[in-house]
């Protein structure tokens, strides 16, 4: 069993389902229905297989596990190299966990081109999982950029009124950064001699000058993906125009790609530059937390509000990564996972009422607690998780990040902690306007509570949010060794550089 290429299996299973849909399902109503079922089953099976990763994962080992390596282009040292460690494992699971929920959430909301829609989601899943497993720069780059294509289509084809503007904004913003990353990857290839990521991590011979430029090039790409202030403006537009499930994947997984890149490349391969640029990241992140929280406060569109809150929450993540201590990095990873679940759920919450009333204007709602008590409860759980209430997932990551940040620099700790107050302000304001109050419109009064399909979508999300909040050790223990190694290597690199500097003098 252990010799099975389980990572490739998880990565490419969705593609099998996609191919099946394309070949078997026809372009009529039955075909659409078959496509739905096929997509659901494929993604469910993928998720179950991916659980085996967790079960068989050895939490004591810091290095990569389930490794697979095939020569691909030997002449250039390119190989198909896959593997996961304690950092990437949960992102694979997050991707496989959210995809079936997306399929389920789109069950009735998507009416045209269902076949293609489902195919796009399955392809997207393959690309996301592949990206988190890739241990070769070329493989990584292909997956990383490939993700853009289905997402671009999902927004551009199944999106809202201004979908084309949003899709292009999304595509160009992210592509602009990526081009620089490609340059950086080529540069690393010339330095290391092949494109293996693990070897680049162990290379340790990059001079500060090299690290400086490489870091900036990677940063250009990752900062857009996170997104960090001030390159975040594509996100609200993309979210508003994307269909619900698109927003879910966008907020749930795609935003994590940038931060994952920082963890996978910037810290291990360019430690000196990471230390050098940390204040820049801190500054941008603190601005992100405060600035976007205030902007979220004045939004009139539910999705925009949540989109802005995502930027603020990801600000915590980038702070946590670049303080490079155990609490900071573990907190950042945990915060990403939590945000993956919680923001996904919040967008799904918007989807529930959007499906009924076809508006995202906050002012159009009010008083939903009366006729949608189930919805009110679920929305409350995720609002509180987003606010960072202890006992729910949001608290653990936020609190650890702030603990780590305060240790590294009290200014960063204090400024970021104001997010605790501002985050509560906009989240509670949104909840109040939508769920509390009295119903004034007949259309709202006619809205029905969540049906069984919707309950089935939210139940796993609620359970995971509680689990992560009450017993986060299940997650923290798994990443402990890998994070420890990451930090130890980083510290060693800084120390070595200092020693060399002393010698040189």
């Amino acid at each position, binding site marked *: 069993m252990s010799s099975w290429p389980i990572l490739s299996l998880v990565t490419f299973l969705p593609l099998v389902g996609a191919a099946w849909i394309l070949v078997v399902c026809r372009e009529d109503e039955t075909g659409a229905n078959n496509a739905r079922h096929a997509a659901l089953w494929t993604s469910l099976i993928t998720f179950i297989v991916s659980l085996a990763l967790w079960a068989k994962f050895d939490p004591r080992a810091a290095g990569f596990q389930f490794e697979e390596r095939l020569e691909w282009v030997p002449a250039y040292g390119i190989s198909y190299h896959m593997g996961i460690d304690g950092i990437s494992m949960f992102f694979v699971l997050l991707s496989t966990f959210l995809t079936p929920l997306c399929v389920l959430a789109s069950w009735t909301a998507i009416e045209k081109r269902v076949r293609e829609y489902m195919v796009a989601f399955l392809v997207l899943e393959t690309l996301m999982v592949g990206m988190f497993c890739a241990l070769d720069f070329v493989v990584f780059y292909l997956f990383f950029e490939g993700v853009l294509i289905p997402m671009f289509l999902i927004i551009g084809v199944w999106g809202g009124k201004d979908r084309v503007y949003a899709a*292009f*904004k999304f595509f*160009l*913003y992210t*592509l*602009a950064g990526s*081009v*620089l990353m490609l340059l950086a990857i080529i540069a690393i290839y010339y330095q290391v001699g092949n494109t293996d990521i693990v070897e680049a991590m162990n290379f340790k011979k990059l001079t500060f*000058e090299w690290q400086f*430029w490489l870091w900036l090039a990677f940063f250009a790409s990752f900062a857009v993906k996170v997104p960090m202030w*001030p*390159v975040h*403006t*594509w996100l609200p537009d993309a979210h508003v125009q994307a269909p619900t499930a698109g927003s879910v994947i966008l907020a749930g997984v795609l935003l994590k790609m940038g931060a994952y890149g920082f963890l996978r490349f910037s810290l291990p391969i360019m430690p000196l530059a990471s230390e050098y640029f940390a204040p820049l990241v801190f500054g941008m992140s603190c601005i992100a937390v405060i*600035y976007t929280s*205030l*902007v*979220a*406060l*004045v*939004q009139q569109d539910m999705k925009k509000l949540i989109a802005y809150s995502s930027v603020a929450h990801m600000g915590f993540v980038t702070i946590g990564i670049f303080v490079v*201590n*155990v*609490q900071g990095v*573990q907190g950042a990873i945990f915060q990403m996972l939590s945000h993956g679940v919680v923001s996904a759920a919040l967008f799904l919450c918007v989807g529930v009422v959007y499906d009924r009333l076809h508006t995202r204007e906050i002012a159009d709602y009010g008083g939903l*607690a*009366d006729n949608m008590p189930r919805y009110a409860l679920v929305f409350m759980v995720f609002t509180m998780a987003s606010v960072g*209430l*202890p*006992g729910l997932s949001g608290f653990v990551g936020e*609190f*650890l990040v*702030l*603990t780590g940040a*305060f*240790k590294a620099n*009290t*200014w960063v*700790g*204090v400024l970021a*902690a*104001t997010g*605790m*107050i*501002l985050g*509560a*302000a906009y989240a*509670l*304001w949104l909840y*109040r306007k939508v*769920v*509390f*109050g*009295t119903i004034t419109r007949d259309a709202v009064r006619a809205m029905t509570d969540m049906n069984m399909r919707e309950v089935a979508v939210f139940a796993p999300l609620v359970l995971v949010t509680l689990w992560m909040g*009450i*017993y*986060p*050790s299940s997650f*923290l*223990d798994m990443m402990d060794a890998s994070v420890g190694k990451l930090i130890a290597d980083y510290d060693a690199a800084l120390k070595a550089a200092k020693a060399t500097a002393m010698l040189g003098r």
Partner: protein
Amino acid sequence: MEFLVKAIVFLPLFAALIAGFAGRAIGDKGAQWVTTLALIASAVLSWIVFFKVGFDGAGGTYRIATWIVSGTFDGAWSVRVDTLTAVMLIVVTTVSAMVHLYSIGYMAEDPSIPRFMAYLSLFTFAMLMLVTADNLVQLFFGWEGVGLASYLLIGFWYDRPSANAAAIKAFLVNRVGDFGFALGIFAVYMMTGSVQFDAIFKLGPELAKQSFMFLGYEVPALTTICILLFIGACGKSAQLGLHTWLPDAMEGPTPVSALIHAATMVTAGVFMVARLSPLFELSPTALAVVTVVGASTAFFAATIGLTQWDIKRVVAYSTCSQLGYMFFACGVGAYGAGIFHLMTHAFFKALLFLGSGSVIHAMHHEQDMRHMGGLKDKIRQTHALMWIGTLSLAGIGIPFILGTGIGFAGFHSKDIILEAAWGAHSGVGFYAFWLGIAGAFMTAFYSCRLMFLTFYGQPHDRHHYEHAHESPAVMLVPLYVLAAGAVVAGIAGYSIFVGHGWEGFWRGAIAMESSKEALHHAHEAPWLVKLLPLVMAVAGILLSWWFYVGSKANLPQLVSATFAPIYRLFYNKWYFDELYDFLFVRPAWWIGRQFWKKGDIGIIDGVGPDGLAAGANRMSGILSRVQSGYLYHYAFAMLIGVAVLVSWYMLSHGR
């Protein structure tokens, strides 16, 4: 023991889950009795634990599970039981059980009874997690948990805009406090590498000598930590500056006000200071801050209480003021006295709130005292019970007999606090003493004013008066139980909390050194100091009687007209709400709008993507009229960018 304590903590949680999720299945009655019986069971067990811990010296820390573990950061789920916890357990569960019982009657006509009962039990669970915490993180869990319950219960009637606004305000103002609390926890962890109480306390003396860089300044470690944590206490306990949410919280149903906003949750700040007293006692500066803030609040809130018309708001400001007494007791080192007052206050203030609830219930949800009057013959039992609460709050008793005097609960606990403040013989101590004395006078005045306006004189609203009726037994029984506490808690508790037996009772649960000194000095206070609070209380009562019953002239009107500016200041709550609205609320929205319209849309998008797009369009128009593909132009622009970068790079780094 371990099982007992866990049962106390988790029974309310299970009850809340049952009432919340199976509310429809078991019905209103089912939800009411499941939660009430669970709480009564929890209360009985608490008393058993209290006697075991307080007198047999049992207790300890029991681990439940790991929670957040990251590196050396270890916050565990656990229950810690010592005397301080045991006292809080009986206070919380007893009052909560009574409030549950009372709610059966008070909320009888509400359409969402299971939800209400579930919230009440959920609150109790969070409060119990708070008082049994063994580390700062679990304390924070309980802290925020009670905040959530408070938010949900203040906004329980979610169709009222004022209730929604009050709920959000409570949560946000508390969050401001929690901001300080969280920073305190970060600082503790940074300096000691732990968040577990005993480990921190052990390092306390070390900490007192250390300093760290905080926001660019070198600050003394311990004092900074204590003050940051105290900011959290100020938020939760509605101390000066962060008090604005508490009066608004009266939008919630009255049982909620009694349980959360009088007896238990708002005392969490006092509990925290007592719990962390081994740290606080090492920092005279932090203690001075605690004393000054406490004393100022005790005075300031009382001044507002003098002028309010809403019966619940009077009691709310009174709570605010009494919490101030508890804080300055801690501030002068008399932690035992602070907790003593916390306990007695829980009984008589819950009694007063539930009594007010009974009045409101009788008056068909009228809360304005100007519409009441003459109710004493209509609702006799409530009237008598309210007097017990009022006299206890005012601190009435006979001093010097039987050694320590004999009187209502508030008499004993308030007097020892004022004596301790005097006994501190420090500037802040005297400040607290004199403000406390002035507060005692005002307390007696406003609480009797409430009684006279409500129960005496002529009825102002005939219709309501005619229909006024005594509350059902299910509401009166809790009142009797609490009244019993308001009478005897002082006499029964004096010796063990602050009297001769205090060392054997507390056994290290609070800072012993400073307690010893503070209590010693308190007991040595001259007889005049011991007599003064009572004199002031009696004077307050008499003046109040003269104002509202005795005098034929309309004295209140006359006085408020004569001192109009001061009256307006008090009546408008010293304009704190207006000030905060001007300083924080409106600017936040304004800045948010500016950032969004000018920052994001104007500058970032204008210069960035939209600007580039417009620029590329213009360029393409100039460069080539043949090509007009949208994507192409972007790609082209990017290609140029890449080319420029590559060539520049090669020029600067190439060989």
